[in-house]
Protein backbone atom coordinates (compact mmCIF):
# COMPACT_ATOMS: atom_id res chain seq x y z
CA UNK A 1 0.00 0.00 0.00
CA UNK A 2 2.82 2.36 0.94
CA UNK A 3 4.61 1.41 -2.25
CA UNK A 4 1.46 2.09 -4.26
CA UNK A 5 1.08 5.54 -2.77
CA UNK A 6 4.77 6.42 -3.15
CA UNK A 7 4.59 5.51 -6.81
CA UNK A 8 1.10 6.79 -7.48
CA UNK A 9 2.39 9.66 -9.62
CA UNK A 10 3.14 7.28 -12.46
CA UNK A 11 1.02 4.25 -11.48
CA UNK A 12 -2.23 6.25 -11.47
CA UNK A 13 -1.93 7.61 -15.01
CA UNK A 14 -0.62 4.21 -16.15
CA UNK A 15 -3.71 2.43 -14.82
CA UNK A 16 -5.98 5.06 -16.35
CA UNK A 17 -4.10 4.77 -19.65
CA UNK A 18 -4.46 0.99 -19.76
CA UNK A 19 -8.16 1.38 -18.96
CA UNK A 20 -8.52 3.87 -21.78
CA UNK A 21 -6.56 2.05 -24.47
CA UNK A 22 -7.90 -1.42 -23.67
CA UNK A 23 -11.45 -0.23 -24.25
CA UNK A 24 -10.69 0.51 -27.88
CA UNK A 25 -8.32 -2.38 -28.53
CA UNK A 26 -9.73 -5.27 -26.51
CA UNK A 27 -13.11 -4.69 -24.96
CA UNK A 28 -14.92 -3.38 -28.04
CA UNK A 29 -14.78 -6.95 -29.29
CA UNK A 30 -16.94 -8.20 -26.42
CA UNK A 31 -20.43 -6.78 -26.88
CA UNK A 32 -21.50 -6.87 -23.21
CA UNK A 33 -18.34 -5.02 -22.18
CA UNK A 34 -18.53 -2.62 -25.10
CA UNK A 35 -22.14 -1.63 -24.49
CA UNK A 36 -21.68 -1.20 -20.76
CA UNK A 37 -17.99 -0.66 -19.99
CA UNK A 38 -17.88 -2.63 -16.74
CA UNK A 39 -14.13 -3.00 -16.92
CA UNK A 40 -12.84 0.20 -18.39
CA UNK A 41 -14.75 2.88 -16.51
CA UNK A 42 -13.93 1.35 -13.07
CA UNK A 43 -10.32 1.01 -14.21
CA UNK A 44 -9.89 4.67 -15.14
CA UNK A 45 -11.71 5.68 -11.94
CA UNK A 46 -9.32 3.50 -9.97
CA UNK A 47 -6.48 5.43 -11.63
CA UNK A 48 -8.08 8.71 -10.58
CA UNK A 49 -8.60 7.45 -7.02
CA UNK A 50 -4.99 6.33 -6.70
CA UNK A 51 -3.77 9.60 -8.19
CA UNK A 52 -5.80 11.70 -5.78
CA UNK A 53 -5.04 9.60 -2.70
CA UNK A 54 -1.35 9.60 -3.61
CA UNK A 55 -1.44 13.36 -4.05
CA UNK A 56 -3.12 13.97 -0.69
CA UNK A 57 -0.85 11.50 1.09
CA UNK A 58 2.33 12.72 -0.51
CA UNK A 59 1.66 16.43 -0.24
CA UNK A 60 2.68 16.81 3.40
CA UNK A 61 6.35 16.44 4.11
CA UNK A 62 7.40 16.52 0.48
CA UNK A 63 9.46 19.02 -1.41
CA UNK A 64 8.07 20.97 -4.32
CA UNK A 65 9.58 18.61 -6.83
CA UNK A 66 7.80 15.63 -5.39
CA UNK A 67 4.57 17.58 -4.94
CA UNK A 68 4.49 18.55 -8.58
CA UNK A 69 5.08 14.92 -9.54
CA UNK A 70 2.03 13.83 -7.53
CA UNK A 71 -0.01 16.72 -8.86
CA UNK A 72 0.97 15.93 -12.45
CA UNK A 73 0.15 12.25 -11.99
CA UNK A 74 -3.24 13.00 -10.50
CA UNK A 75 -4.09 15.49 -13.24
CA UNK A 76 -2.98 13.10 -15.99
CA UNK A 77 -5.18 10.32 -14.63
CA UNK A 78 -8.15 12.68 -14.33
CA UNK A 79 -7.60 13.81 -17.91
CA UNK A 80 -7.46 10.27 -19.29
CA UNK A 81 -10.53 9.19 -17.30
CA UNK A 82 -12.34 12.29 -18.53
CA UNK A 83 -11.54 11.49 -22.15
CA UNK A 84 -12.89 7.95 -21.86
CA UNK A 85 -16.07 9.12 -20.16
CA UNK A 86 -16.50 11.87 -22.75
CA UNK A 87 -16.30 9.29 -25.51
CA UNK A 88 -18.57 6.77 -23.85
CA UNK A 89 -21.23 9.10 -22.46
CA UNK A 90 -21.27 11.83 -25.08
CA UNK A 91 -19.37 11.45 -28.34
CA UNK A 92 -20.63 7.98 -29.16
CA UNK A 93 -24.23 9.24 -28.92
CA UNK A 94 -23.71 11.82 -31.63
CA UNK A 95 -25.58 10.19 -34.47
CA UNK A 96 -27.69 11.72 -37.19
CA UNK A 97 -31.44 11.20 -36.91
CA UNK A 98 -32.81 8.16 -38.72
CA UNK A 99 -33.31 9.21 -42.33
CA UNK A 100 -36.69 9.12 -44.08
CA UNK A 101 -35.10 6.88 -46.73
CA UNK A 102 -34.45 4.23 -44.10
CA UNK A 103 -37.84 4.73 -42.54
CA UNK A 104 -39.74 4.29 -45.80
CA UNK A 105 -37.92 1.22 -47.06
CA UNK A 106 -40.11 -1.80 -47.65
CA UNK A 107 -38.32 -3.73 -50.33
CA UNK A 108 -34.61 -4.19 -49.73
CA UNK A 109 -32.67 -2.16 -52.31
CA UNK A 110 -30.45 -4.32 -54.50
CA UNK A 111 -26.70 -3.86 -54.30
CA UNK A 112 -23.65 -5.43 -55.83
CA UNK A 113 -20.41 -5.00 -53.93
CA UNK A 114 -17.01 -6.59 -53.81
CA UNK A 115 -16.01 -8.90 -50.97
CA UNK A 116 -12.48 -9.23 -49.59
CA UNK A 117 -11.47 -11.56 -52.44
CA UNK A 118 -12.73 -9.17 -55.10
CA UNK A 119 -15.76 -11.36 -55.80
CA UNK A 120 -18.99 -9.45 -56.45
CA UNK A 121 -21.79 -10.24 -54.04
CA UNK A 122 -25.37 -9.12 -54.72
CA UNK A 123 -28.35 -9.18 -52.45
CA UNK A 124 -30.27 -11.03 -55.17
CA UNK A 125 -27.81 -13.94 -54.82
CA UNK A 126 -29.60 -14.67 -51.57
CA UNK A 127 -33.19 -14.73 -52.87
CA UNK A 128 -35.04 -17.56 -51.15
CA UNK A 129 -32.97 -17.12 -48.03
CA UNK A 130 -33.30 -14.84 -45.06
CA UNK A 131 -30.46 -12.33 -44.91
CA UNK A 132 -29.16 -10.21 -42.07
CA UNK A 133 -27.31 -7.18 -43.42
CA UNK A 134 -25.12 -5.51 -40.85
CA UNK A 135 -23.94 -2.03 -41.72
CA UNK A 136 -20.92 -1.19 -39.62
CA UNK A 137 -18.68 1.78 -39.18
CA UNK A 138 -15.64 0.05 -40.57
CA UNK A 139 -12.33 -0.61 -38.94
CA UNK A 140 -10.35 2.40 -37.68
Amino acid at each position, binding site marked *: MKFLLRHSYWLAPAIAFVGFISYFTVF*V*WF*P*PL*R*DVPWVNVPMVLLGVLLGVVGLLGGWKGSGWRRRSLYLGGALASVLIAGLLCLY*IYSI*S*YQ*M*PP*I*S*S*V*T*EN*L*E*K*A*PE*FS*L*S*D*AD*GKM*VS*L*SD*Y*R*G*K*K*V*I*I*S*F*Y*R*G*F*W
Partner: protein
Amino acid sequence: MQTEIDKFEERGVALIGISTSTVGEIKDKMLPKGFTFPLLADPELEAIDAYGLRHVAGYPTGGDIARPAVIIVDEEGFIREKILTENWRVRPTAEGLLSRL
Protein backbone atom coordinates in the same frame (compact mmCIF):
# COMPACT_ATOMS: atom_id res chain seq x y z
CA MET B 1 -22.15 -12.26 -34.62
CA GLN B 2 -19.24 -14.27 -35.91
CA THR B 3 -19.07 -16.34 -32.73
CA GLU B 4 -22.69 -17.44 -33.18
CA ILE B 5 -22.44 -18.01 -36.91
CA ASP B 6 -23.33 -21.71 -36.60
CA LYS B 7 -26.67 -20.82 -35.08
CA PHE B 8 -27.48 -18.48 -37.95
CA GLU B 9 -26.41 -21.11 -40.48
CA GLU B 10 -28.48 -23.75 -38.74
CA ARG B 11 -31.52 -21.59 -39.26
CA GLY B 12 -30.68 -20.96 -42.90
CA VAL B 13 -29.95 -17.30 -42.42
CA ALA B 14 -27.16 -15.59 -44.33
CA LEU B 15 -25.05 -12.80 -42.86
CA ILE B 16 -23.54 -9.91 -44.80
CA GLY B 17 -21.46 -7.03 -43.46
CA ILE B 18 -21.20 -3.70 -45.29
CA SER B 19 -18.92 -0.75 -44.53
CA THR B 20 -16.96 1.96 -46.31
CA SER B 21 -13.77 -0.06 -45.83
CA THR B 22 -12.03 -0.91 -49.09
CA VAL B 23 -11.27 -4.45 -50.18
CA GLY B 24 -7.67 -3.98 -49.01
CA GLU B 25 -8.70 -2.70 -45.59
CA ILE B 26 -11.10 -5.59 -45.09
CA LYS B 27 -8.39 -8.04 -46.07
CA ASP B 28 -5.77 -6.50 -43.79
CA LYS B 29 -7.79 -5.51 -40.75
CA MET B 30 -11.01 -7.53 -40.59
CA LEU B 31 -10.22 -10.97 -42.00
CA PRO B 32 -7.43 -11.61 -39.45
CA LYS B 33 -10.14 -11.30 -36.79
CA GLY B 34 -11.71 -14.46 -38.16
CA PHE B 35 -14.80 -13.27 -40.02
CA THR B 36 -16.14 -15.97 -42.29
CA PHE B 37 -19.29 -14.29 -43.63
CA PRO B 38 -18.86 -11.86 -46.53
CA LEU B 39 -17.73 -8.37 -45.61
CA LEU B 40 -18.48 -6.12 -48.54
CA ALA B 41 -16.61 -2.98 -49.52
CA ASP B 42 -18.77 0.08 -50.15
CA PRO B 43 -16.25 2.95 -50.32
CA GLU B 44 -18.59 4.96 -52.62
CA LEU B 45 -21.47 4.49 -50.14
CA GLU B 46 -23.76 3.10 -52.87
CA ALA B 47 -25.56 0.53 -50.75
CA ILE B 48 -25.21 2.67 -47.64
CA ASP B 49 -27.08 5.52 -49.38
CA ALA B 50 -29.66 3.16 -50.88
CA TYR B 51 -30.56 2.24 -47.31
CA GLY B 52 -30.30 5.85 -46.08
CA LEU B 53 -27.57 5.02 -43.62
CA ARG B 54 -24.91 7.63 -44.41
CA HIS B 55 -23.45 9.19 -41.27
CA VAL B 56 -22.00 12.44 -42.58
CA ALA B 57 -18.57 13.14 -41.07
CA GLY B 58 -18.98 10.09 -38.85
CA TYR B 59 -15.37 9.11 -39.33
CA PRO B 60 -13.14 10.66 -36.68
CA THR B 61 -11.14 12.54 -39.31
CA GLY B 62 -14.22 13.79 -41.12
CA GLY B 63 -15.18 11.26 -43.81
CA ASP B 64 -18.67 9.85 -44.28
CA ILE B 65 -19.34 6.31 -43.04
CA ALA B 66 -22.31 4.06 -42.40
CA ARG B 67 -24.23 4.40 -39.18
CA PRO B 68 -24.50 1.01 -37.51
CA ALA B 69 -27.69 -0.76 -38.51
CA VAL B 70 -28.98 -4.26 -38.92
CA ILE B 71 -31.51 -4.94 -41.67
CA ILE B 72 -33.32 -8.27 -41.77
CA VAL B 73 -34.47 -9.22 -45.27
CA ASP B 74 -36.91 -12.07 -45.86
CA GLU B 75 -36.87 -14.77 -48.54
CA GLU B 76 -38.73 -12.55 -51.04
CA GLY B 77 -36.48 -9.54 -50.60
CA PHE B 78 -38.77 -7.56 -48.32
CA ILE B 79 -37.44 -5.86 -45.24
CA ARG B 80 -38.64 -7.56 -42.12
CA GLU B 81 -36.87 -5.42 -39.55
CA LYS B 82 -34.65 -2.38 -39.28
CA ILE B 83 -32.65 -2.25 -36.12
CA LEU B 84 -30.89 1.04 -35.61
CA THR B 85 -28.94 2.27 -32.66
CA GLU B 86 -28.81 5.73 -31.13
CA ASN B 87 -25.31 5.09 -29.89
CA TRP B 88 -22.70 3.60 -32.15
CA ARG B 89 -21.08 1.66 -29.31
CA VAL B 90 -24.28 -0.27 -28.69
CA ARG B 91 -25.30 -2.85 -31.28
CA PRO B 92 -27.72 -5.73 -31.33
CA THR B 93 -26.34 -8.99 -29.99
CA ALA B 94 -26.41 -12.28 -31.83
CA GLU B 95 -28.83 -13.71 -29.26
CA GLY B 96 -31.12 -10.74 -29.70
CA LEU B 97 -31.12 -11.19 -33.47
CA LEU B 98 -31.72 -14.93 -33.29
CA SER B 99 -34.78 -14.36 -31.15
CA ARG B 100 -36.21 -11.94 -33.72
CA LEU B 101 -35.86 -14.20 -36.76
